[in-house]
């Protein structure tokens, strides 16, 4: 018995080598044979997978900015394919998305390189200009594409400046999403988180929390972009309109990525409306 133990001990290296070498070569040359094995011995392995997941959370910071650029670009492409961005050439506009649709809204992603919220009239500078196809009177939406930010008022070859909604001349054609009453959203120059919605007649039924969206009546903003929610309203005597306070859905203090949205049928629409006025 002792001899056998001694023998085994003496040649333990050889035995271990033969068994393990055969085993690992077998694994190597028969890989992809069974799914259970693949799951255990690859990085899909739970332990290693979670280590990767964990480290990725840290490592991803290295390329976060380029990833963001790519995602923003992709989003811009996707948004152009939404039915809202298309102009339906069918009289029955209920059938969204077909070969009769034409692209109406052109999205360009941009990074905010300068921003202010505390002045009387605020502007935002973006890193996209005429070289990238930015045009005057384009809408600026926030990074998620829902939430108005401003309107492009100046374009250079590489940069553009937008008049923020926090500008006393800014007037955004808006409507109450629930019942469709429309007016315009303006800023009073004080609170950077609130706008005022005027021209809503008193017979309209409104309540706190109603969302206010763009009406699409102007040629700047696409229809249905969220502006904010009603947080106060008062019934003043001597006027036919409510005074409505809207809390902005976008925090303009922490704006990083935006979309510039160009209505490509703007000129056509304007010319048409001009004709009637004459």
């Amino acid at each position: 018995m002792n001899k056998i133990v001694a023998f085994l001990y003496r040649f333990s290296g050889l035995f271990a080598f033969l068994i393990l070498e055969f085993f690992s070569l077998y694994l190597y040359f028969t890989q992809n044979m069974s799914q259970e094995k693949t799951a255990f011995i690859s990085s899909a392995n739970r332990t290693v997978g979670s280590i990767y997941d964990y480290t990725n959370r840290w490592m991803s910071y290295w390329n976060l900015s380029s990833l963001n650029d790519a995602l923003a670009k992709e989003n811009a492409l996707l948004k152009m394919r939404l039915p809202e961005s298309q102009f339906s050439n069918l009289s029955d506009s209920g059938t969204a998305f077909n070969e009769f649709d034409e692209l109406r809204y052109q999205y360009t992603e941009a990074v905010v390189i300068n921003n202010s919220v505390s002045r009387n009239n605020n502007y935002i500078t973006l890193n996209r200009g005429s070289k990238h196809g930015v045009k005057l009177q384009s809408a600026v939406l926030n990074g998620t594409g829902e939430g108005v930010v401003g309107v492009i008022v100046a374009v250079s070859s590489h940069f553009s400046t937008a008049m923020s909604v926090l500008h006393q001349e800014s007037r955004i054609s808006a409507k109450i999403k629930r019942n469709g009453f429309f007016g315009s959203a303006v800023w009073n120059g004080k609170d950077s988180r609130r706008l005022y919605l005027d021209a809503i007649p008193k017979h309209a039924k409104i309540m706190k929390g109603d969302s206010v969206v763009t009406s699409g009546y102007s040629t700047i903003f696409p229809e249905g972009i969220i502006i904010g929610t009603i947080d106060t309203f008062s019934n003043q005597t001597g006027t036919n309109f409510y005074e409505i306070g809207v809390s902005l859905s976008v925090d303009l203090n922490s704006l990083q990525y935006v979309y510039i949205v160009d209505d490509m049928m703007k000129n056509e629409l304007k010319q048409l409306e001009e004709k009637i006025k004459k």
Partner: protein
Amino acid sequence: MFSNVYAVNIFRFLLLLLIQGLVLQHIGYKNIYVFIYPLFLMLLPLEIPHGLLVFLCFLMGISVDIFYNGFGLHASVMVAIAFARPLICGLMEPRGGFEVGQSLNAKSLGLRWFMKYSAVISLIHMFLIILLEELSLSWFLLARVIIGFLLSMLVIVLYQFIFNPKV
């Protein structure tokens, strides 16, 4: 003392595995690999039973395989080299012979000896890995082996300098 040897080697196992799996895995360019984990094999104590040596190296190899999706590639190479390590150590025995309980690192045996020792193991390791992967010989394979070997030596020596500062 004895438990210290265990602790050190377990710690080194984990550290090398994480360096290999989380850092060096992303450093290689195209088909060039950088391997630091054979250092685990190199630094295991001289008196370790042969069977245990082979088994521990198998564990290391299979762990790296899990990170690399290697399916036994690294394990088989590690097992082969672990089996051959007593032979390599015998061939590279310094003139006066190894002392009892001597560590096989640069601090105890000198940087020159350690460079030679790690170069032999690292080169064999790199060659076997790439050979097993391609299953054919070519000049391109040789270039991969040599570039990968040089980069690996760099990190291995660097590791020695970091953990045994008085080399």
